[in-house]
């Protein structure tokens, strides 16, 4: 069993020091695509937290009890190489299910997250977290904490980005840099700023 201190280290490490967007370069697509307004960015961030936390738990279960099943391992059959394809399958189905469930039982939450849920289905950040949990050999609890805090790091990054982009709107940007170019430069500077956290843990 992992101690509380270890869990806190995992949380801070994945949310800030190894920020999923700004230092691992995962989930760039929604980070650039849905960061025009702070409100929608917060909605996207919320949906990502929701999906990654659940999916890291479910994929953890699947890995432990199906792919790395002690019974199969004893027989000399190693199925862990199937993790990528199985995780994609599981995450896609999970997001579908969560969407259905929310639509039926929590319409208000569905109203705020609904449009973003299908967008996250095959997001690399979601798959990345599931695969990293395996790579780092986390147990179920550590995996869920890692998933939640990574998603929270995504939330921080996308909301910060949206705030900056709202300000950029009012600036006189040289024609060459307008649009995605200035956003990429901004992302780059944010990434350098987040480098300041490295070595904290």
């Amino acid at each position, binding site marked *: 069993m992992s101690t509380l201190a270890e869990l806190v280290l995992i949380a801070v490490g994945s949310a800030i020091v190894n920020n999923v967007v700004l230092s691992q370069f995962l989930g760039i697509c929604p980070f650039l695509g849905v960061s025009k307004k702070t409100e929608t960015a917060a909605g996207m961030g919320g949906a990502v937290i929701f999906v990654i936390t659940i999916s890291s738990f479910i994929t953890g279960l699947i890995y432990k009890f199906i792919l790395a099943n002690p019974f199969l391992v004893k027989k000399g059959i190693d199925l862990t190489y*199937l993790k990528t394809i199985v995780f994609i399958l599981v995450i896609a*189905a999970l997001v579908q299910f969560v969407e259905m469930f929310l639509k039926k039982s929590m319409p208000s939450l569905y109203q705020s997250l609904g449009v973003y849920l299908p967008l996250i289905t095959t997001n690399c950040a979601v798959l990345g977290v599931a695969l990293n949990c395996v790579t780092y050999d986390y147990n179920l609890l550590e995996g869920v904490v890692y998933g939640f805090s990574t998603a929270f790091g995504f939330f921080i990054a996308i909301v910060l980005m949206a705030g900056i982009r709202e300000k950029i*709107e009012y600036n006189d940007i040289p024609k060459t840099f307008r649009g995605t170019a200035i956003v990429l430069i901004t992302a780059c500077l944010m990434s350098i700023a987040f480098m300041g956290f490295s070595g904290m843990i």
Partner: protein
Amino acid sequence: MITGIIVAAVVVGCVGIILGFFLGIAGEKFKVETDPREDAILEVLPGNNCGGCGYAGCSGLAAAIAKGEAPVNQCPVGGEPVATKVGEIMGVSAGASVKKVAFVKCAGTCEKAKQDYEYTGVEDCAAMAFVPNGGPKSCNYGCLGFGNCVKACPFDAIHVVDGIAKVDPKVCKACGKCVAACPKHLIELVPYEAMHLVQCSSKDKGKDVMSACSVGCIGCHLCEKNCPSDAIHVVDNIAYIDQEKCTGCGICAEKCPKKIIL
């Protein structure tokens, strides 16, 4: 080797089949009853999600129409063709609706309107409320030309040309976003067929208008006196045309000393 492949195929296949069944059952169990007309209406709506109807996007309007909360011709973008199709789905006649278009009531381009000073700062019309004299333009009613309407337009139909906003009536869908975005309340929705429009909104007295802009309404009442159908009136030093009474004779445009009636 072969067992490895078979086991892998069986495991992935089983996971897939189980998930498939699970989703199928969940789909039945968590089915939400929706009005089939709602989807049909959503199909015929333009799908720009501009919000011009006052609902949160096209799906919001479709739901409202299906419930009977909104009239079938609520969509300002689709106009009559869409209203007719929606009316068919709902089983009611749409009724005639006039195609409208946005119109900027200012003609004070760079060389025609005077500037009090040079301004180099934040390019935003709303920010002009905090700048001395309400912006660099001498006229306090005219178009500021920083393009808040341009940013608001979801159809790329309005552009700042020569210092003032210009609407392209062919592209404009009359969603009303620019009307709401203009801090000077210069933009109005007018009938597409409107023959004559007053290109000024200045409520200043004639002398002040003359000193600020060469194409401002000076409130001389010439148009009002000469209109044969009583369609044009000067209120608060600015001429207004009642489009319902206007016959399009063109006498006002001819008589206007400043030539600001189109």
